[in-house]
């Protein structure tokens, strides 16, 4: 069994290490001391969120009749309605329902845009049922499907989601993602395109009307 003296001879004591560290720190210039102190404070704040990323700004409040901007589109929601069908546009199974976001949509950009730029970035949740991933768009006046928008033209549209059952509750949460214009996208080689982000820009709990 090795003796205590032998161990002390192999490793410097804690006291000696602290002494050398104190001497080293005392010899540092004032700027280095201040930097080290700041780093120490930051590290000490880590358990309380000091090193966490800045929180995302909350979504903007979506209200009935208030225009919201979804990329190149301006969307003003008039009402949200649950229907057994939207004939002749949509006739779902008897157990299913159609939730329609009735809105006036205007393309405010300066070039034509496909409807998917809008439908990829709108969602309805909160009814305790599954909905179609992406809504379909129909012109309210004639029930024709809307696939492409021209600049400066407004439409009253039925933004239609098919659900797998009756909606639970008296409200529906409508969400819109942030959609940004990307001039260059090396990932997709698709320049000058509107791209939806996984960040909710607009969100609102809107009253749900029911019609039979």
């Amino acid at each position, binding site marked *: 069994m090795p003796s205590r003296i032998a161990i002390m001879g192999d490793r410097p004591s804690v006291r000696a290490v602290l002494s050398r560290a104190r001497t080293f720190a005392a010899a540092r210039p004032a700027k280095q001391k201040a930097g080290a102190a700041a780093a120490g404070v930051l590290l000490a704040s880590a358990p309380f969120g000091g090193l966490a990323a800045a929180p995302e700004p909350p979504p903007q409040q979506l209200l009935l009749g208030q225009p919201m901007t979804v990329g190149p589109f301006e969307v003003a929601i008039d009402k949200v309605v649950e229907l057994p069908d939207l004939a*002749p546009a949509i006739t779902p199974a008897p157990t299913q329902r159609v939730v329609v976001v009735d809105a006036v949509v205007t393309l405010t950009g*300066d*070039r*034509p845009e496909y409807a998917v730029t809008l439908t990829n970035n709108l969602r309805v949740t909160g009814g305790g049922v599954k909905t179609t991933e992406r809504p379909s768009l129909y*012109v309210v*006046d*004639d*029930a*024709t*499907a*809307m*696939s*492409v928008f*021209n*600049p*400066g*033209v*407004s*439409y009253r549209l039925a933004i239609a989601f098919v659900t797998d059952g009756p909606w639970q509750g008296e409200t529906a949460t409508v969400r819109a993602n942030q959609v940004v214009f990307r001039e260059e996208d090396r990932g997709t080689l*698709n*320049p*000058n*395109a509107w791209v939806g982000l996984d960040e909710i820009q607009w969100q609102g709990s809107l009253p749900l009307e029911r019609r039979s």
Partner: protein
Amino acid sequence: MNRAASTAATAAFVIAAMGLGRLITDHVPLEASAVEPFTVTAGLGQTAALEYAEVTVTGIRVTPTITGNPTAKAGGRWLVVDTELVATREPTLMLGFDLVAADGTRYAHSSRGTDCAINATLATGVPWFGSFCFDVPEAALDDPHFLVSRGDYAVDGSGQRRDGLADIDLAIGPADVGTLWSRTEPVDLSPTGVVPPAPAEQAAP
């Protein structure tokens, strides 16, 4: 020739070659000639003869409603462009049909009307007739041009590069805009295809 003179001659040759290359890249419009389509202009009722097809706009109509099943109502107004196409060399698929306003804004045609044409599959030498329907705001009726090509516009006109493009002046002047916009009569379209439309549909503004 001694070694020093040979080295100097080689250096002079390299420098001259680099200078010539710089002159070429500076003064030859390489990018412009590589991307622009070859545009052939024509007016309403005239034929634009492209390398691969002949394009004629036989008439235009403006209406809020295109009849059919279902009837299609415009958000703005429908500008219907009645078009005759003939492939002159080989069977040709044509995808590019756009409207461009005087300010350069481009408008896409719609498939909402039952008989609105979307694209054109042409047999060689056989005339093809179709009506392209543009849902446009009032400003687009001021001096619009109809652009026709094999490739679609795609991203920034990439589908039309270095290919024939017909630029048809639809002959609508500023004085016509108000009259055309105020029209309310529905328009009935003939089915797209090789059967010529009824003469009554061939109306000028």
